[in-house]
């Protein structure tokens, strides 16, 4: 492989009955290929390092259109494979110096990939986000507000402000406790659960607090039960948003891969 191109890795599956990458395009419109080794198959495409090298990438990651197109292209490949066979997605923008390195990876980490594949076989990832309205705050204690102490507009303002802060803290505490309960309950129906960082309101486009951004790996047979549980939790208040099924992105980790 020449030094001006790299091998972009999308997803790894068992080398049996996986769909042919025929006609699918990967990132930057590059044609998808399959590399098979040791009973595993890796889906890859050759990418120009002028775009996927370290330096250009630092600039590209600042470009939302580029990121959008690249993330969706990556996702499209993962979906096409994962919808047909158990598949372990790889993190966005994982670029090897060549095909031999990918073959080497399949060989060296064969057992780890098989373990990861076993873990997600017959299971799907579901996302559940919970929102709480910060405006729905706990009313400040009336007695406290009317209480003695210094009078005058300054002191009243400070008291009111403190009460406001207290009620906001209290609302946050309640929301956090609820998030904890919702997560535990969903995780109990799932094989595994994981909390992603709450999305920034600028990215989610929502003003409410996102108190939970959870991912759950659910057995296919328990899917109906999981959805029912989401509905029940929804009935207890707060807004729950269910997304999926996802390829098992949040649960794709090789045992010593350094994932949380």
């Amino acid at each position, binding site marked *: 492989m020449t030094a001006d191109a*790299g091998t972009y890795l999308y997803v*790894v599956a068992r080398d049996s009955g996986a*769909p042919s990458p025929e006609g*699918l*395009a990967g990132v930057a419109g590059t044609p998808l290929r399959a590399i098979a080794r040791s009973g595993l198959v890796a889906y890859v495409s050759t990418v120009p*390092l002028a775009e*996927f*090298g*370290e330096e250009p990438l630092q600039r590209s*990651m*600042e*470009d*939302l259109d580029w*990121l959008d197109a690249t*993330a*969706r*292209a*990556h*996702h*499209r490949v993962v*979906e*096409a494979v994962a*919808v*047909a066979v158990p598949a*372990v*997605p*790889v*993190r*966005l*923008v*994982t*670029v*090897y*110096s060549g095909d031999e*390195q990918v073959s*080497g*990876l399949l060989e060296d*980490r064969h057992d780890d990939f098989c373990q*990861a594949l076993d873990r997600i076989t017959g299971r799907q*990832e579901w*996302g559940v986000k919970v929102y709480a309205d910060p405006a729905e705050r706990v009313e400040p204690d009336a007695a406290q507000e009317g209480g003695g102490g210094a009078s005058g507009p300054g002191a009243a303002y400070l008291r009111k402000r403190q009460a406001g802060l207290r009620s906001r803290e209290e609302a946050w505490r309640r929301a956090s406790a609820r998030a904890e309960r919702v997560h535990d309950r969903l995780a109990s129906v799932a094989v595994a659960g994981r909390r*992603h*960082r709450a*999305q*920034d309101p*600028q*990215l*989610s486009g929502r003003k409410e607090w996102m108190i939970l951004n959870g*991912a759950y790996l659910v057995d296919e047979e328990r899917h109906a039960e999981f959805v029912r549980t989401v509905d029940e939790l929804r009935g207890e208040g707060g807004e729950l948003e269910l*997304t999926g*099924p*996802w390829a098992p*992105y*949040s*649960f*794709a*980790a*090789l045992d010593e*891969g350094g*994932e949380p």
Partner: protein
Amino acid sequence: MTYPEPRGAMLAEEGRLPAERVALVDLLDRLLAGGVVVSGDLVLSIADIDLVRISIHALITSIRDDE
């Protein structure tokens, strides 16, 4: 960039959203904080999620300012 027909039908049957309709922010949660992280002869991999996120925030802010 569309799915080949049979695959699209399969996705629809499973209730999966086509890649174009998935919320980018949900996708980035998974693509930047999930997925297998492999080391070795890598030219590059996105490991530093925080840096990436900060960049996106800055970018979005700048987009808003332009409007």
